[in-house]
């Protein structure tokens, strides 16, 4: 992917995601209560905590998928309710599969991530198609781009979801449990892919129960329990030198 181009922000330098005394949830008892959190451009933040601690709820509140019932969410300095450039946040949901009831190819699923960048009457341009191809390339699925997603492995399907988010060329990538249920080799390949996105200047917010595979790229770990922030620390030492640039080890196995 090319480096991210930054549209002019109303408040340049403001945090990409900011929660101010935010409560998120449904009904009388919100899942997340009075959380304040600032995520700056370029950070790679892990959101950790036990089941039910509210980490997925925070992400869903930020993305507009769960109601914010108290406080405020600001995106790129703009109150979330007035923010109309949702594509600037790319969402990789926690799904173990992208297989629907109707067959679809990797290319078709990834291309659906590009729609947010054009008006409904505009057909895709050559530039749109190029970005979709690059997104498929970044996650190492070029050989499978015309394959039906139902024939892919779980790890490969996860990478399809990442490519779909990348197709909008977002500045922030919000991921829910990207390494859950993926074997060690695939988790490694995934982390290498994410490292390249960080190198492009993207901000990452990753919900995870296991920071170990992501440790080489994390800059900060925010811990949640019972719907509140209980820890906010810089991540441990980065991975061994040269780790990020190790060539030839990422992506799909060589074609046979």
């Amino acid at each position, binding site marked *: 992917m090319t480096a991210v181009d930054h549209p002019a922000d109303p408040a340049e330098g403001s945090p990409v995601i900011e929660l101010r005394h935010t409560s998120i949830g449904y009904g009388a008892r919100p899942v997340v209560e009075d959380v304040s959190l600032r995520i700056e451009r370029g950070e790679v933040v892990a959101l950790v905590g036990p089941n039910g601690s509210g980490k997925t709820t925070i992400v869903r509140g930020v*993305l*507009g*998928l769960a109601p914010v019932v108290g406080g405020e969410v600001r995106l790129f300095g703009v109150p979330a309710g007035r923010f*109309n*450039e*949702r*594509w600037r*946040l*790319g*969402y990789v*949901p926690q*799904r173990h599969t*992208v*297989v*629907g*009831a*109707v*067959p*679809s*190819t990797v290319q*078709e*699923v990834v*291309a*659906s*991530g590009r*729609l*947010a960048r054009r008006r*409904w009457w505009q057909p*895709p341009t050559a530039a749109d198609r190029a970005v979709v191809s690059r997104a498929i390339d970044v996650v190492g699925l070029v*050989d*499978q781009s*015309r*394959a*039906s997603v*139902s*024939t*892919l*492995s*779980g*790890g*490969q399907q996860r990478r399809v979801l990442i490519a*779909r988010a990348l197709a*909008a060329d977002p500045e922030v990538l919000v991921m829910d449990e990207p390494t859950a249920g993926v*074997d*060690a*080799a*695939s988790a490694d*390949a995934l982390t290498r892919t994410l490292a390249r996105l960080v190198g492009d200047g993207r901000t990452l917010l990753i919900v995870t129960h296991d920071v170990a595979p992501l440790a080489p790229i994390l800059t900060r770990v925010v811990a949640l329990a019972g719907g509140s922030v209980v820890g906010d620390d810089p991540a441990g030492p980065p991975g061994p030198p040269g780790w990020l640039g190790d060539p030839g*080890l990422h992506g*799909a*196995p*060589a*074609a*046979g």
Partner: protein
Amino acid sequence: MLHYAFMQRALLAALLVGLTAPVVGVYLVQRRLALIGDGLGHVALTGVALGVLTGGAPVLVALACSVAGAVAIEVIRARGKASADVALAVMFYGGIAGGVVLIGLSPQGTPANLSAYLFGAITTTTSGDLVLFALLSAVVLAVAVGLAPRLFAVSNDEEFARASGMNVLGLNVLLAVLTAATVVISMRIGGLLLISALMIVPNAVAQVTAGSFRSSMAVAVGVGVGASVAGTGLSYYANTPSGGTIVLLAIGVFLVASVGSWLRSRWHGRRHHDMREHPHEHGPGCGHEAIPHGDHVDYLHDGHRHAAHGAHYDDH
């Protein structure tokens, strides 16, 4: 049979339905709402009955009724209450019951009249109906194909579409209205009891034969047009109801396609592991012994060698 004007109209109507219904149905199948069309058919019956009772245009009143029903369904679904399922069922029963009672009340309401709507009476299509069906089909096709990428995105993953800023409710209501219009177009041919069969069965064939969304749509349209035109012709010669004949033909194609795809996957399966049945992705340090083999690397797996090839492993 082609020199009868009513058969010409019947075959044209069959062609329109065969073309339109699968294109709308593909999104219903993708959203796993295959049965919604049937419910809309039930609601449309009240509209038909209202049209018959008031002496107005049954087709237009049915269209208004099922569009209203479709929008109501989407609103009920969007609220996502646990009671939505039961609320929809009540609405569908109300549609059938209201239709049956209203037709019974109307002076022209005979059991034969009712059964024409329930089971289809393609040969009663008038030229006025045909013009209306053609207009509706043109609009439905233009929207369903023109907005295909967006309808695909929303049907494939509603949450992702919402998170990326698409107007999800708007697109869902649009799809519901397309479905309602298709129900009305199919009414004469399939009958209200089989109304969504032509939306769904051709897509069931596509599901077992196609590899992409685009080819699914093409396969479904092919099966839809073939079954509805051939079924209409067959019903003329065999003197059977058109709706049932068309649907049985389409189901026959589905059975043949299913058996064919099962045989093909057994044949391929010998030397071929789909990665979905093989969740482990071979790679450096995966625990399986790596054996360089020409231009690629095989991995020793249960006594044989796996070589990645596109989305599957070949045994070497």
